[in-house]
């Protein structure tokens, strides 16, 4: 009686000739309206079963481990920071989705093989507590450089890049901005992100393990942070966080309580792909098509607080009113991320945590 009907369906029909269920494996943050998923069923005859498999990194790793005997048909939620690991491990099989042309070419990584399809993008940026800076009559920081200034001493809380994807995004943002200052651990040779982080450290940056802790416990601008008497008015979060703050307040305020430092952003794109060994590849393909359909793309922003990738999607009013468009986010090629990630995290750890 615990399981859903889909669960029983899957158990009963796995191995059957034409499964009516298509299984989407994703991370915990996946969300879609019921109506939208029903729409998919109406269009294709397939029912979607969603399996949530931990946070983004964990979910990808699990797919890697179960390569060849995956838990589902489609995986959604691998972003550009993890893309290479997923591709190198061969968990996806190529599929060229219908409607791909509606997506800007810059987002379409793996263009040759089409193993993954971009679904959404978002920006990891520093958020600030508007009230704090208004009270202090201080201008909120706008760029990476600002964050290292003495005026903002002891104000920033960031996430551990090893444990948290916004943390990693922020680190990659600084690396994209300042470049790699050297490969030797600890004693950094001249410049690069390592130098920048030394300054941040000197400026009292605080690190916690997860976004939840940073945002709900330390950040003074969020509801949780207020109750917990959080004393950091700057936090690494998403560009979409301010509109969401508005969405989930009652009554909804006229202006968002938090703002975004637009010069501190790193762009994250999330992809979906057909899993190698999928039991229902037909359904999987249909689902991937659906993920970039206008129906899904329009629904997505308010479900997962990310930006659509197709150019025909309309952004909800909430986003246009309370959100900001990041013109020049930092970006980095997945291959470079794949090459450097471990090393950088190691360096970062000894630089900031020790």
């Amino acid at each position: 009686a615990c399981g859903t009907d889909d669960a029983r369906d899957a158990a009963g029909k796995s191995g059957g000739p034409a499964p009516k269920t298509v299984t989407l494996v994703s991370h915990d943050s996946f969300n879609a309206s019921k109506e939208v998923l029903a729409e998919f069923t109406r269009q294709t005859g397939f029912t979607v079963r969603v399996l949530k498999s931990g946070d983004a990194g964990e979910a990808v790793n699990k797919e890697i481990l179960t390569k060849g005997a995956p838990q589902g048909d489609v995986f959604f939620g691998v972003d550009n920071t993890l893309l290479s690991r997923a591709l190198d491990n061969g968990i996806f099989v190529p599929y060229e989705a219908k409607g791909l042309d509606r997506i800007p070419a810059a987002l379409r990584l793996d263009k040759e093989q089409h193993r993954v399809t971009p679904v959404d993008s978002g920006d990891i940026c520093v958020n600030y507590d508007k009230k704090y800076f208004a009270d202090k009559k201080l201008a909120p920081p706008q760029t990476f450089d600002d964050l290292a200034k003495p005026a903002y001493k002891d104000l920033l809380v960031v996430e551990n890049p090893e444990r948290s994807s916004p943390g990693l995004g922020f680190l990659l943002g600084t690396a994209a901005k300042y470049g790699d200052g050297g490969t030797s651990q600890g004693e950094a040779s001249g410049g690069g992100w390592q130098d920048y982080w030394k300054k941040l450290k000197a400026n009292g940056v605080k690190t916690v393990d997860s976004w939840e802790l940073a945002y709900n416990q330390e950040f003074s601008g969020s509801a949780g942070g207020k109750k917990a008497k959080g004393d950091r008015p700057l936090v690494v979060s998403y560009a979409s966080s301010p509109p969401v703050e508005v969405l989930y307040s009652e009554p909804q305020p006229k202006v968002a309580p938090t703002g975004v430092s637009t010069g501190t952003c790193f762009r994250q794109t999330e992809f979906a792909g057909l899993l190698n060994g999928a039991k229902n590849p037909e359904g999987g393909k249909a689902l991937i098509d659906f993920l970039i359909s206008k129906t899904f793309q329009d629904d997505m922003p308010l479900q997962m607080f990310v930006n659509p990738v197709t150019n025909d999607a309309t952004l909800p009013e909430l986003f246009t009113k309370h959100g900001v468009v990041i013109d020049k986010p930092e970006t980095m090629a997945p291959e470079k991320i794949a090459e450097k990630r471990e090393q950088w995290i190691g360096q970062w750890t000894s630089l900031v945590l020790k």
Partner: protein
Amino acid sequence: MLLPVAFFAVFFAWPVVSIVGRGLRPDGRHWELGRFGETLTRPDILDVLWFTLWQALASTALTLLVALPGAYVLARFDFPGKRILRAVVTVPFVLPTVMVGTAFLALVGRRGLLDELWGVRLDTGVWAILLAHVFFNYAVVVRTVGGLWSQLDPRQEEAARVLGASRWRAWRTVTLPALGPAVAAAALMVFLFTASSFGIVQILGGPAYSTLETEIYRQTADRLQLSTAAVLTMVQFAAVGTILAVHARTVRRRETALRLVPPERTARRPCGAGQWALLGAVLLSIALLIVAPLGVLVERSLATPSGYGLDYFRALGHVDGTGTFLVPLTDTVVNSLQYALAATGIAVLVGGLAAAALTRRAGRLVRGFDALLMLPLGVSAVTVGFGFLITLDEPPLDLRASWILVPLAQALVGVPFVVRTMLPVLRAVDERLREAAAVLGASPWRAWREVDLPLVRRALLIAAGFAFAVSLGEFGATVFVARPDNPTLPVAVARLLNRPGELNYGQAMALSTILMVVCAVSLLLLERLRTDRTSGEF
């Protein structure tokens, strides 16, 4: 015996062995045993090992120190509200560690309650970790030790008193040795819990502190460094194995048949200043250490921007701004209860059978099995979870996406509880009572039902309560099991906390409060079951 062994083999040993094998034989053929030396000489790993060990020892000692008086008071004193208190102390057990951390920080952290009252501020760091461990594990001691304690014949202590032993001395020389196995069991469980503490260390310790568990998590889930994780898992195995061996050895020498009496007969109203003072002290420590943090969560669930109110609770029942329930409240509660009941059922069945088998039989093999049963408490949930993924992937055991996997994973943690709470009592049951039943015509099975079961019923209910609470609050195992989208309470709480917005935070608090209430009410119901059927037949 067969069922527990099978259960254990399929749902623990096989997955763990597979994942460790994967780590040590990346190509599927060659063992890379060199990894051991490599990993175990890294100074950061050594630091982690050392920290894990000492914080666990310290936490265990502190928990025993604080909770043993509590166990005594709850076992031997009669006072109004005792049952509620017993349920309340178990509540921390069901709370997602995020909540525990939050509550604790609100109490002892920056500008927390104690900071404002007395300037006591433990912020993050070792003390916060230790105290939170006490908070978390108080119930383990109260329940395992208290369960036996309340059934010890008080006349043994009286015998010591008339021989000139003071109250304290009588306790130390007569009661403590009799309680020994239960205390050891409790200590063992607390040790295993705190040694593999994950959320609390992460939240209260910050990124600078890491234990073996967080390290294994990091290596497995984040970095997919299975080889390092495998080495660490082996270390964990070795450590847990050693502890279990020591435990088994010390306990075996201690276990004797005791005269057990029904708990109702041993509890008295406190008399004399000393006893009232003790009661007061215990109540105070419970209030401070357990009720206050829980109270903080309740307070937060009620504090809305426009003053205190039930807005967040109401919001849980409402459709959110985007037209869907983020967390369908009743579904979530029902789901949680169903999972927890299933897990409790499995744990009680498997654990009960194992405990029964372990009481009757002796010998190396059986003792080894006893120790093995405890391993799930000491082995990282991530190891088991990832193990599930790579082993249970073929029919008929392709359970990876089946709902049953959640209660199964939870039962893995519940079984050791059941075994450890029941064994000390079962082993204390005088064999001659079973003989008495036999000469009155009871078959061995019937004798077990008629003699052991009533005597261990209390322990069994305690164990069931534990298993229930553990699964109700269990997050570690469930997050590794991919689950169809029907969240349990803790998962829903986590999901709410995963989003910005005051309403989400408030609802998370409200949901935590509901979780606490559900837990407390379930445990109270369980306790009621206990007393309604004590005398006479059933």
